[in-house]
């Protein structure tokens, strides 16, 4: 932990010079939060399944580069965004969290996606993050998505790695959704075994807004995804889906909070994991229905397939309800390969390896079928198939590293 504090003390001025006022404003407070708390221990409720200390202990070089490359439509560097958008920075994230504090302390630039009132963005906005370089590197990345009233967009955030170095990503995404806005947000990780990723997503939803969030961990090293959604406007809806494919020694932890603060909101959560070899998965999802949040409808499901005896899954669906007129359910399952289905397929001539592969793909197909964006759905079916066949080449279909 001290290595980060020392580093910050050294480069404090450089960071401030490369950044903007809105981002610099929160740094000292973040430093204090981080210094006071340090990394969360496994005793911290929301970090029970993460190994934060170990993940952050290697000596990474820390990238302090502002955003580069051509930005997609509706995307800005924070300094170029509208003032009323800029001030939202660090207002949605949980600033008491040390991982967020570390990000706030060290991050030099923020990618802002701003969709103005009533605009329906036709093509998906794709934010490609490519980890590249010969040095072991830590990247602090910040994204702020602001959907004005009645705005509609699909945003795809991908994380890939182009070189075989160790990478540590600490990404914080803040999302503010105005009333009646629609956002489909996809996060796809396709990195490698030496990559560690901490991704914290904070969403604030206004009246009648709709969020469809899908998190796909197709290939990784160690990953921890946090998703906090605060339903603050009546009639808002969130679908939070996720799928994980992990094998070898990979570790994936999804930690979610869906906070029903007002009446007449809906949440739907579905996370599916396929764990092979000695992979370890964790899912902890809390649905909180606050006092007065009547007529809440909420469903939370976590289903897992452990292919081997050495694969481990920790699952913890939680419901906390303080209102008395709600419809909520939650559940989780951990199962093995369906031997009857396996034999049925073999009897039809499909060899065992292929049959296993088809069953694994079938298990998570539900999450992919739920994706509203057809082109992405088709692409993901292909990617999942390749992933399971061990043919997932890094950066496939990406021009940057060819």
């Amino acid at each position, binding site marked *: 932990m001290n290595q980060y504090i020392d580093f910050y003390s050294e480069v404090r001025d450089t960071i401030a010079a490369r950044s903007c006022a809105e981002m610099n404003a929160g740094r000292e407070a973040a430093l204090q939060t981080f210094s006071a708390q340090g990394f969360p221990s496994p005793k911290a409720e929301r970090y029970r399944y993460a190994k934060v200390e170990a993940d952050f202990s290697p000596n990474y070089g820390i990238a302090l580069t502002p955003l580069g490359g051509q930005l997609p439509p509706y995307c800005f560097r924070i300094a170029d965004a509208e003032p009323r958008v800029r001030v939202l920075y660090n207002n949605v994230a949980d600033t008491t969290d040390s991982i967020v504090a570390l990000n706030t302390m060290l991050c030099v630039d923020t990618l802002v996606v701003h969709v103005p009132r009533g605009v329906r963005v036709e093509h998906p906005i794709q934010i490609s993050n490519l980890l590249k370089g010969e040095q072991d590197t830590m990247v602090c990345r910040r994204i702020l998505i602001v959907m004005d009233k009645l705005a509609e967009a699909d945003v795809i955030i991908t994380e890939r790695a182009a070189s075989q170095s160790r990478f540590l990503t600490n990404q914080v995404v803040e999302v503010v959704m105005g009333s009646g806005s629609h956002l489909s947000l996809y996060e796809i990780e396709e990195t490698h075994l030496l990559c560690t990723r901490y991704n914290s997503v904070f969403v604030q939803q206004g009246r009648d807004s709709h969020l469809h969030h899908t998190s796909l961990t197709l290939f990784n090293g160690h990953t921890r995804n946090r998703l906090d959604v605060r339903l603050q406007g009546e009639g808002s809806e969130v679908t939070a889906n996720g799928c994980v494919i992990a094998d070898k020694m990979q570790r994936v932890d999804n930690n979610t909070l869906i906070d029903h603060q007002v009446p007449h909101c809906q949440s739907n959560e579905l996370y599916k994991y396929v764990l092979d070899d000695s992979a370890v998965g964790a899912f902890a999802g809390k649905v909180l229905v606050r006092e007065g949040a009547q007529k809440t409808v909420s469903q939370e499901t976590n289903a897992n397939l452990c292919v081997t005896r050495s694969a481990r899954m920790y699952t913890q669906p939680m419901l906390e309800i303080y209102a008395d007129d709600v419809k909520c359910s939650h559940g989780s399952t951990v199962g093995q390969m*369906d031997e*009857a*289905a396996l*034999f*049925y*397929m*073999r*009897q*039809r*001539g*499909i*060899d*065992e390896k*292929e049959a296993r592969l*088809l*069953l694994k*793909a*079938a*298990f*998570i*197909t*539900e999450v992919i079928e739920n994706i509203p964006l057809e082109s992405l759905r088709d692409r993901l079916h292909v990617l999942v198939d390749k992933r399971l066949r061990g043919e997932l080449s890094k950066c496939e279909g990406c021009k940057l590293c060819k």
Partner: protein
Amino acid sequence: MRFMLQINNLHACINGKEILKGINLTVNDGEVHAIMGLNGAGKSTLSNVIVGHPAYEVTEGSITWDGKDLLSLKPEERAHEGIFLSFQQPVEIPGVSMVNFMRAALNAKRKYQGLEPMPAGDFLKLMRQKRSIVELDSKLTSRSVNEGFSGGEKKRNEIFQMAMLEPKLTILDETDSGLDVDALRIVAEGFNKLRRPESSAIVITHYKRLLDYLKPDIVHVLIDGRIVKTAGPELATEIENRGFDWIRNGQ
């Protein structure tokens, strides 16, 4: 006449319990054999052992297929060799579409035969053509394997798969169970339409009803893990009238 399937003194057990206690059975090209018997006699065990279900252990005896040692082949290899089991309880496989399932099965067989995968257009045409034989709705073939199918639809789907894979030996394991008269007729007539002169079948059933359609050449009675009586089709009628007791009592 060629001997396609030869079973000699076959003993098999599941979870350490011996179910088959010395089965002898020869099925020639083009023959239809019926196997009748009470519940628990070992009929389904016999079919499972022929297709290589991993839960069953063969403790004695042999099965040869077209001169090959069948027991040394994996289940998928037996399928490629042309053995097809119509399951008593077809398995639902959510998330695997019928199209992908059939394509994987058909192309696996073609690969075994040294053929290229079937072009997509030809494959879909074949699906359509074979589907009509068992009057299987196109909505069903676009779904996941057997998912949400009624009992009758599942059995028709088995015959549809048989039509796609064109096996040399088909084992119908209580295909009539749970079928109403109309569904039974569709399944049986579909099966008859698909039969080629050289293909053979083993029909496992409790009842004569299915056999009235399929017209077996030979009827066997299986009791307590052994074939205790073998005769012509008239045996099915006699069982329908008199039950199994008279056979068991050795009269």
